[in-house]
């Protein structure tokens, strides 16, 4: 039996974590993440209620996220965030910064 941790990697305090990755210039949006590749959320760069809602749903720093599929003709994305599936439009996915994580995704 191999105990694999299901849920997020240890979280630094949000403020510390954020100032840390300000060094790294390379930032990807969730829309750029290839299907099936595991990514880690870096931040939601969307002001107002929408941004807050995304954070509440679990798009917090370090949370694992995978794009499962994209609807055709520029339609919404189906993603797995943490341990559930949701769909969101590209406009929102564009505002979610992610970093491709080491290792393979599990889509």
């Amino acid at each position, binding site marked *: *039996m*191999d*105990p*694999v*941790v*299901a*849920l*997020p990697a*240890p*979280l630094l*305090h*949000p*403020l510390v974590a*954020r100032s840390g990755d300000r060094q790294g210039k390379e930032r990807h949006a969730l829309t750029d993440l290839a299907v099936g590749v595991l990514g880690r959320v870096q*931040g*939601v*760069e*969307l*002001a*107002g*209620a*929408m*941004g*807050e*809602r*995304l*954070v*509440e*749903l*679990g798009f*917090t*720093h370090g949370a694992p996220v995978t794009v*499962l*599929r994209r*609807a*055709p*003709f*520029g*339609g*919404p994305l*189906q993603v797995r965030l*943490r*341990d*559930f*599936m*949701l*769909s*969101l*439009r590209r*406009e*929102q996915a564009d505002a979610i910064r992610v970093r491709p994580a080491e290792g393979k995704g*599990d*889509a």
Partner: protein
Amino acid sequence: MLEVALAGNPNTGKTTLFNTLTGAHAHVGNYPGITVERRVGTRTCANGETWRVHDLPGCYSLAAHSPEEEIAHQALTGRLGDAPFDAVVVVLDATNLARNLLLLVQIAELDLPVIAALNMMDAAAAEGLDLDLVGLAADLGCPCVPMIARKGIGIPLLEQAVRDVAGRRQVKPSLVSVPSAEMRRAIEQARVVLGDLVDGRSDGEVLWWLCSDRSIVDRLQPGLGKRLELAVPRAQDPTRDVRRQVTESRYARIDPIVMRRVRRVRPRAQTPSERIDRWALHPVIGTGLFVVAMALLFQAVFLWANPAIEAVDHGMAWVTGLVHGALPPGLLSDILVDGVLSGVAGTLVFLPQILMLFLGIALLEDSGYLARTAFLVDRLMARVGLPGKAFVPLLSSFACAVPGIMATRTMGDRRDRLLTMLVAPLMSCSARLPVYTLVTAAVFAGTAPVLGFLSVGGLVVAAMYGLGFLLAVAAAFVLRRTAVKGGGAPLLLEMPPYRWPRPRNILRALKDRAWVFVTQTGAVIVALSVLLWVLMAFPRFQLPAEELASRQAVVAQTTAPDSPQRVEALRVIERDVERRQLEQSIAGHLGKAIEPLIAPLGFDWRIGIGLIGSFAAREVLVPVMAQVYGRGHDDSDEAVSAVGQTMLRSGTLTPLRGVSLMVFFAIAMQCLSTVATLKRETNGWKWPVFALTYLNALAWIASFVVYQIGAALGYA
């Protein structure tokens, strides 16, 4: 009696648990001033203790971005006038603990006695998750009850847990987030602004006011939202805003607990839902499945409900006959039969379609497919300015706007929902068909087919469907920028795992829907129906005695006793009385009074009376026109066509006038049941009146353009 609240994210089995706990003892109502449903039930526990169970609206977070969240918070903090809750059972999806725990932490921060009901333990085990419940309870500082609500497993433990926490504050401070210095400052600043509102209340409540949408805060306390933003300004960089920190700090508490207490005993494998989605969301196969599913749903509402509708019609005709026979002819009999009973019939006749549609929606929703349909059509619907979730309501509106408008409750965003309700009556519903038939059978019957096989009547009817749809798109575009400004929630929805629909939940949902419709919408329909009857029945008309006597004498001379001729001749007199009653009634006078208004559309006063009468329901135009001409009427196609022929002969109808009339009916809102449904679903008269005004004005303009251009081209 213990007051027990059920809270939880959507799709956690909260409704199933509520149904299990309360059995048949529950009722559904509305929270005052808002269109969120309130469900309260009672439970008698194994030891005889009774609970009042409050099913709070499902929400992901307590911070209010929608009326559901606002209500959940207001109920929890005792601002709705309920007795304080003795226990708050937070139903959690054990397969997805972190996101679910956010709500639990928020509720615990309100200093409420919480219980974590870890539902779907079987699914968690199937996914290879091992939950350390003892450790979890220690970390969370509240009882953790493992449950499989759909199988009724875990209820005794839950009863025990509720008894344990009732009245006591068992939450350990460890669960509540420790604020950073910045958050601490924000809380202090907000407390100053909030004043009495949070006097002696928890920091959690202060944070709720701070993190909720300004529009909601402003509605609860005018001007408060702005003052809060001045006191605690938003950061330039949204990722550094203190409101985000509040959520992040909660997750920073939750995540380590979940990591410690939830172990994955075998690597994550593809779940059945993910395998199904490979096909169900496939660009080609998935789209095909979607079309089939929607076609079936439409068939059910449009065709399969018909036998039941006919049964209701026959049943009501029987009751009406019974009342008619039992009462002496006169005003009382008339008001009961033509006013009240016709309103009751007008309510019940919608039930089959409503039940069919909601059966379909309940199946789609309970199985998890409804969220997928929104995913599939979102792009298409976005092109016409509506969200993907508007698809099913609008499709249903082609059968009937009443169930269509009711179906908008599956839509999350309030403004999206309102917009959809306002354009739904433009979909050509089945009640318009008799009117279309009346006109096309009369004016296009003899016309040679286009290209040899397309009947002109058929083409015109198809054009009416197209017209309604295009105007709905245009109206949505305009209304989004004017009356229903803003909103338009971007598609953001959870895709729950596929599950077998639970018959009990579906039956419960159907029962609730039917009950709410009959009692609340029905009351308005009956009231409007009586009002319409008064308009058509007053002032009373009586044939002068001499005239009646002389006409009866003529009949007696010219026909043999008991011959069909005599029966027919007497009926002619009767119809003449009906015609004159209608003509000199308030409705008749109104019809004549509006003639100058409708003359530019090509309508005379006879159609004017028809328009007023058909406000009861569009198809009523046909019998009202029959009455205007003093003709008998039944529902057969021949009778409909005969009414049309009479209109044609009298010059009331010409091909151009017919088209103008069809255009008017395609657009106008002439359905008191839709008005009543809009009133009930928006909880007020503002939006039904708005819909009446804009749709009827639009109908007038469109008919005007059609008739005037046609007349100018010489078609009059």
